[in-house]
């Protein structure tokens, strides 16, 4: 199953809003840790939701490189569509 960047982006937005338990303005440029105040473990936990939805595993070194929502969308799309 291929997922478009748009589908992955809306998945990421939904998972982030669920993790934060509050409504937030999100864009590709939103910084996940500094902008939204998630600590490193909270980021890894919320990434699990994305991994489940897309049936992928994002290695921890890739997660560590993620700064913005856009970075995460790109990483997920790369792993999803890369094979």
């Amino acid at each position: 199953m291929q997922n478009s960047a748009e589908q992955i982006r809306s998945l990421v937005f939904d998972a982030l809003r669920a993790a934060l338990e509050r409504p937030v303005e999100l864009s590709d440029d939103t910084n996940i840790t500094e902008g939204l105040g998630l600590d490193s473990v909270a980021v890894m936990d919320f990434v699990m939701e994305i991994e489940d939805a897309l049936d992928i595993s994002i290695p921890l070194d890739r997660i560590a490189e993620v700064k913005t929502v856009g970075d995460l969308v790109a990483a997920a799309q790369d792993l999803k569509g890369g094979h």
Partner: protein
Amino acid sequence: MALFDKYAPLMGQFESLESTGYNPFNVSFDRVLSPTEGMIAGRRILLLGTNNYLGLTYDPDVIDAAVAATRNLGAGTTGSRVANGSYGGHRQLERHLADFYGRRHCMVFSTGYQANLGILSALAGKDDHLILDADSHASIYDGSRLGHAQVTRFRHNDPDDLDNRLRRLADTPGDKVIVVEGIYSMLGDTAPLREFVEVKRKWGAYLVVDEAHSLGVLGRTGRGLAEAAGVEDEVDFIVGTFSKSLGGIGGFCVSDMDGFDILRVASRPYMFTASLPPAVVAAVTEALNQLRHRPALRQQLMDNARRFHAGLGDLGFQVGPEASPVVSAIMPDPKTAFAFWTRLLEAGLYTNVSLPPATPKGLALLRSSVSAAHSRSQIDHALSLFADTGRELGLIPAEPAIPTWVKHPTANLAGTEPQDALAIGFRNQLLARLAAPSKAMAKYYSAFRRQSPGRARIVGDK
């Protein structure tokens, strides 16, 4: 200061704790008096947060062994085992541990943290995969980062999620190494090891179990969760520490895998650090001997663990899912955790505060660890301080909540006609504890008499 600007938020938090005069992350003991008591700021404090599970730090034979080793072999080794040579004691301790576990190989490390660094970084190479339980200790995460393997994590204690992760990797080359812990250090819960072993076999992966908090605690002979679950043959590597039940410092890994000893010249945290000093090696060797030959310590430890875990649950605190020497009360937020911790310390009880990201699911925890060395009255005293503080802070009901043991009334006392399960439960609990009445139980008793005057007829009552 620019170099430390990145720590500004952390610094703010740390300084605000320092300004209160009670910073749980900067505690200093004037003296330690025994495995269960110490002095802080000139006051005698009951210790309930030291991971000293078997209370062996003050065992006379352990101390004698350390003193003799220092006199005979000096204060330190001043070098690494690879570059500067092993002492006889290092080899002997490795043989004793291998024998204890019934394994062919053992490597000893200078700390438990380094054991995970050294094993995980060396086991999994560039094209291999480490699959970690999400709630793994920092040393497991750091060991994974030190190596060059791809690292992914699965949901805590979830065999189905582990299965999913391994399925996704099925077509990817490289070995897969699963890492779990025996007892998790934050909530005291254990891994579903039998289920994990099934998943491991299905996908042909390797399994590492970190028994840091379960060595000397679980299993018929104290070898840990793998022994308790009856799956030792399926665990490829057991990692552990000397700094908890064995009362010293250091770490180890045991295995039956052919070629294991090559790790001695491949594992950087083993090669490039000074070896354990003679005193520690001798003390740990004797502590292991005590662990093996005094099963009563383990029994005492688990009695205390169950008493404290059930006691906190009965008072209305939210605690971890199972009784283990690690007992954490879940706090509503970090601020309350600090306030609770401070009040307990002022009342003479030392515990730990654990906060995210070190804790699972963003929980703020007031963490305790019990010891075999705690007396029953020390455990009950700690419970009564928790009860007082919990009520002061409005975290638990003013009156005792309906205890869990009410659901399991057992005895049927002759000559009485109990009206309901609550009465049976209260009475049984009172009977069980009459031998050692405590402040907490006195409160239970008087509350019960107030509520059910007609039924408060117990043995010895007028």
